């Protein structure tokens, strides 16, 4: 986008730091600094996937980059991918409305290692359910004036009318799914969104996740 050397993008498994090829490490470092300065939200504590296009940076340059990201920006490098120039998939917002997460990739790994808690009843006004260790599944509604918070995903098998906060430990790939979506406020990681006043139910399940433009997008939920 604005920065041709380094691009920081949100994908469904978290942030990707995409680095263009044929550049010196000094150019890359400067570009990273610019790109992170451009963000209006702190990224402290989150993790990134480095995506390199061939020809790749030297091995020691990569380890230098990894320690620099950790020290200067408190960003953990989750892994390093080397891709061909053409195969970089479009970010979420540009993707078609059905996002079937492929089972063969390791995208689901962080989700699989988390715990889940089932809440077998409706959460009423004034009540709060919090589960930082993993995902929350609610067999009922989340009513206006209540709050659900989870380290992982939030799945409401009913109507979401209250506030939902997924990825409270900073996992930006967390999603919020509800059979009927009419929340007051949504939060994923440190991204928040407020629904327009008088949101009517659309009559189909919806999913909220972080899109490419640093905003929470809500769309029809088809399948995982």
């Amino acid at each position, binding site marked *: 986008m604005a920065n041709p050397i380094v691009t920081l993008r949100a994908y469904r498994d978290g942030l990707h730091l995409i680095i263009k090829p044929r550049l010196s490490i000094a150019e890359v470092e400067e570009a990273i600094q610019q790109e992170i300065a451009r963000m209006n939200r702190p990224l402290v504590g989150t993790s990134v996937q480095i995506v390199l296009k061939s020809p790749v940076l030297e091995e020691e340059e990569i380890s230098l980059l990894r320690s620099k990201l950790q020290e200067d920006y408190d960003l953990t490098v989750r892994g390093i991918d080397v891709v061909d120039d053409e195969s970089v998939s479009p970010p979420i917002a540009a993707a078609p409305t059905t996002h079937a997460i492929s089972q063969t990739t390791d995208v689901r790994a962080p989700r699989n290692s988390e715990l889940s808690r089932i809440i077998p009843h*409706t959460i*009423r*006004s*004034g*009540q709060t359910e919090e589960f930082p260790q993993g995902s929350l599944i609610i067999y*009922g*509604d989340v*009513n*206006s*004036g209540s709050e659900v918070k989870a380290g992982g995903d939030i799945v409401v098998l009913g*109507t979401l*009318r209250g506030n939902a906060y997924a990825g409270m430990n900073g996992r930006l790939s967390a999603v919020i799914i509800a059979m009927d979506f009419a929340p007051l406020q949504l939060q994923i990681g440190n991204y928040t969104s407020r629904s327009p006043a008088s949101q*009517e139910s659309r009559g189909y399940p919806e999913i909220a996740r972080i899109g490419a433009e640093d905003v929470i997008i809500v769309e029809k939920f088809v399948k995982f």
Partner: protein
Amino acid sequence: MGKVIVVTSGKGGVGKTTSTANLGTALALLGKSVVVVDADVGLRNLDIVMGLESRIVYTSMDVIEKQCELAKALVRDRRVDGLMLLAASQKNNKDDIQPEQMKAICDKLRTTHDFVLVDSPAGIERGFSNASAGADEAIVVTTPDVSAIRDADRIIGLLQNAQIEPINLVLNRFSAQLVGNGSMMDQADVLDILNIDLIGVVPEDSGVITSTNRGIPLVYEDASPGAQAYMRIARRLTGQRIPIPDLEDKGLFSNIVKWFTRNR
């Protein structure tokens, strides 16, 4: 052994006191022995709505302070057999009564009466915990507007935590006309949010204002739609199975309007 039922709502002004007075009178008209208890210490109203304000000598505070026997503090409603009022003290406040003391009064009253209806104050603080302390069941009164429904939802959560079961809903001040033109939530919307059993729908009835000011509960006016609704709720409380009539306007025009507004 009688039942203790707390009448509550969370929000003020939705019709707790009116409902308590009318349901108490209706149950007595059905031949039950009933005590209505005003738990709104410091802001008592039930005596006015029932037209008994001039006859109160002792209050629940006097019973707790052992100034008088419980039986002596009960005011008999002379218009109908078997209806008594236990008034709240107007000069104390809610913190002067402990939940255990209210529970003791309710437990004593249930040995001598079929129904003990406790009129809860608005709010979720001490007044509410006093009113619900001795209750077996609850009636939650709400009007079909979002703020009353959110407060009702809060109260239902608190009642469930206190293991008060069943919790029945009275939908008050329901206007078929406003639902018909799409500006009021309908019965199904309210039940969808609150998810408890509906025991009755009371239509908007201007007769309530006159009856409150005159101190004669609406249920004595046989022809009034509000009175009929309260009578039906009272019958349901005694265990009779009476269907809830559909108060919504079934005119062709309003149905068309509704169909369009729903599918927008």
